[in-house]
């Protein structure tokens, strides 16, 4: 374990690199960068132990802007590269920075497998529902029917919800935040970092140029109280400007009710428990979308489960302790040999 006392105190500035940030003015990525840079000093980790790994896309330029170790990979492969980094040295603090094209399309396979293995990394998924760097083609998260440069008559593809995919892979941590709520993002990043295993954080991010206001209904300050529900462990699932709406279970579905109406009281409202091993409730919460439901933000799921990189190390240590073979000379001279 790291000796916390010996770690110097960092500030946001320690994590700002000398590279000029080249995102478009007004891009949601700026606030995510800022929230990460604000969270890092609070993670009680030496600066040189952070590694930011990315794929390709606007969001994947992220590592250049953080003054830590960084690896800008190739399209879709950040999770695979990060898996190598983390397996190689489990004492590193590894962050994957990726977008909806990078993670849901070309890197979809690595996305589900890093979750399945439960590699101890933080995975930030910037979801702006569009290909930005290639200038405006629809992505696997673009809503059905949306007109984009490659869907001039509207898309005919059903979109992924990253959270649903994560539950399908039985990911052990899933949180959602929005790019216009820096305080909440920072809280979520700190929670994600605490979790042992793959911590997936989806940020609803605005692409000001090619998909402006795509999350507007969810994130706009005038409507968000009614359209978002901020889930907190141990608290009732309540939302709304008047804090009078809540979620109840109705058969196999969630249902929005108003407290004090139709016979529903506060006692009927569900209490959020992200630690349930069964991912079904987290799946229902991740699925919720407007207009029937509010969109869930906060930590939807955080369960304790075995961690790949830790298992890999302990297996090696165990075999080392019982094996008579201590080096190559032992190995090469073991078993069937012949003296000629």
């Amino acid at each position, binding site marked *: 374990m790291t000796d916390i006392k010996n770690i110097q105190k960092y500030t946001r500035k320690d994590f700002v*690199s*000398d*590279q000029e940030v080249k995102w478009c003015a007004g891009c949601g990525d700026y606030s995510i960068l800022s929230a990460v840079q604000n969270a890092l000093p609070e993670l009680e980790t*030496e*600066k*040189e*132990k*952070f*590694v930011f*790994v*990315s794929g*390709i896309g606007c969001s994947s330029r992220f*590592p*250049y802007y953080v*003054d*830590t*170790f*960084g*690896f*800008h*990979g*190739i399209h879709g*492969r950040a*999770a*695979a*590269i*990060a*898996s*190598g*980094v*983390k*397996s*190689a*040295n489990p*004492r*590193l603090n590894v962050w994957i920075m990726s977008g909806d094209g990078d993670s849901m399309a070309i890197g979809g*396979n*690595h996305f589900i*497998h890093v979750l399945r293995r439960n590699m101890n990394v933080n995975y930030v998924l910037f979801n702006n529902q569009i290909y930005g760097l290639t200038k405006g083609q629809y992505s696997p998260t673009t809503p059905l029917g949306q007109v984009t440069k490659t869907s001039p008559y509207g898309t005919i593809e059903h979109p992924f919800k990253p959270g649903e995919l994560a539950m399908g892979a039985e990911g052990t941590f899933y949180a959602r935040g929005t790019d216009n709520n820096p305080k909440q993002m920072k809280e979520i990043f700190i929670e994600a970092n605490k979790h042992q295993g793959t911590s997936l954080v989806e940020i609803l991010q605005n692409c000001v140029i090619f998909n402006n206001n795509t999350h507007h209904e969810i994130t706009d300050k005038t409507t968000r109280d009614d359209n978002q529900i901020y889930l907190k462990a141990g608290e009732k699932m309540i939302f709304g400007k008047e804090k009078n709406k809540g979620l109840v279970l109705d058969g196999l579905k969630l249902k929005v009710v108003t407290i004090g109406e139709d016979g529903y009281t506060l006692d009927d409202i569900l209490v959020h428990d992200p630690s349930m091993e069964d991912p079904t409730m987290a799946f229902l919460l991740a699925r919720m979308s407007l207009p029937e439901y509010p969109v869930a933000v906060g930590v939807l799921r955080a369960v304790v489960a075995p961690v790949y990189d830790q298992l*890999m190390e302990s*297996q*090696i240590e165990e*075999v*080392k302790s019982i*094996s008579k*073979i*201590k*080096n*190559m*000379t032992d*190995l*090469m*001279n073991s*078993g*069937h*040999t*012949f*003296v*000629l």
Partner: protein
Amino acid sequence: MATNNNVIERERLVIKFAGDSGDGMQLTGTQFTDTSALLGNDLATFPDFPSEIRAPQGTIAGVSGYQVHIGHANIYTSGDKADVLVALNPAALAYNLKHCKPGATIIVDRDAFTEKAFKKAKIDSNPLEDGTLEHYNVIAPPVTTQCREVLRDSGVDSKTIDKTRNQFIAGILFYLFNRDPQLGIDFLAKKFAKKPKLVELNTLILKAGYTYAENVEAIHSTYLINPNIEKKGKFRNITGNQATAWGLMAASEKSGLNFFLGSYPITPATDILMELAKHKELGVKTFQAEDEIAGINSAIGASYAGLMAATSTSGPGLSLKSEAVGLAFITELPLVIVNVMRGGPSTGLPTKTEQTDLMQALWGRNGEAPIPIIAASSPADCFNYAFMAEKIAIEHMTPVILLTDSYLGNGSGLWKIPNMEDLPTITPRFAKANEPYEPYARDPETLARTWAKPGTPGAEHRVGGLEKSDVHGAVSHDPINHEKMTALRKEKVMRIANSYPAQEVFGKEEADLLVVSWGSSKGAAYSAFKNLEEEGKSVAFTNFNFIFPLPKETPDIFKRYKEIVVCELNDGQFVKYLRGEYPEFNYLQVNKMQAQPFMVSELTEKFNEILEAK
């Protein structure tokens, strides 16, 4: 041991074992091989199996084979045609007869030659009776009957008994080769140490086979292969895939770096992943990735984190990895990509051999991305070249492609166990803590950049697939910088040739013909060259293991010979490459695209034709 017959001493001899996949031919072959090694013979082996796990029994498609070439002489290939064929069913006989020498000894189970079996093998009549084997020396005991007789009171069912048939044949072979059957029994005892009943049954059958051979009159003469006298020291029989895995592990120990392999199962390279997965006691980290792409990318991540990293694959897998090879190249991270080549294109012939990915290894990337390429030449030297590949990768900060193939990977030969102290040093250059660090500052001699592992305070830096500015490593779209970086990366790789050992040339200093091979065609090409040399022909031979960059003395060697012939198991990839590199020479070529190794006889014939045409 046999004393009642003519004993014929042979310099070398080829035995082929063939039967259904479940007949235990690989086991019997290994038993024969290990015994040969114990008795001091030099040897090479090559298994030959279908790509299906259990192809229909008794059919030609289902024939699984194992060939062993043993010698008092030095052995360089798994042998041409067989002197002895063991065929456990008619299909195995029908398929392999064309691979036997005239007059070869054929050992079959007479009981397996039934009408039903002929139908499955699609043959019209009984080859034991229709004259097919007239010119062969046939030993055809009723093996099944004999085994059932011997084990009648053993209490095991006939299915289990029939599985011991291969040991009856083994018994015959021990007699035929004047060997103590106890060696075979010892092998069984070791092999089935946890299954004493199996040892007991098989021992009884092996002895019965030996006794049968002593008593029947079918065996008129027996063979004796004296021990090899050139090979001295402690050896083991090793496959190319195992030697590759161990070479990588030896490089890990020598460099002081922990080893990470990111890989995805693919024939015929999977054995490397399986072998390395066993060796957690030496700290090997194996990551069985979700696909080929994750295999290499995880290895790149591990290399970035400061481990010695490799990925293993075969042709189609290398295609999938291409983009990531470019990433390792531009980030200038050490990485070994092992490609165990197989017949192509596409899925091609997964279990067969072909030197078919040279062009892919050389040029199969976007952009200017020259990468060192090394090719191993024998199962045993896979160890050295895997070791060398890591040494070059680590000391020159570059990905390296190591080419082996199915023939080397699955074949085996005697390998002299090295002393770790005798292996070259491997010296990684890491950034030091709290010292100024520039990612693309270079060592003046090798032009290698300095490796900075995460966890090193003060060495925080960013690398990636985008072009970077010289020295500082910021993202750069500057045209002049790009040209400079392209030239620097190439020059770095070209300078690797400064560290090569001298290119070995065998035979005459100047001659009518220089035989050239690369990688795994060395064994057959060298043996053919030796044949011609013994006949007093004006020949020389050189084999290339360092493919890119080529050894600097290559043109000085080529100019000493009137003709140059390049042999390779493809449509002429290396020769095309040589024509591009050294267009001043005229090259003849011998190519084979049957996804089978060269035979020494066919090369000898080709070289003779060239010499005679002059």
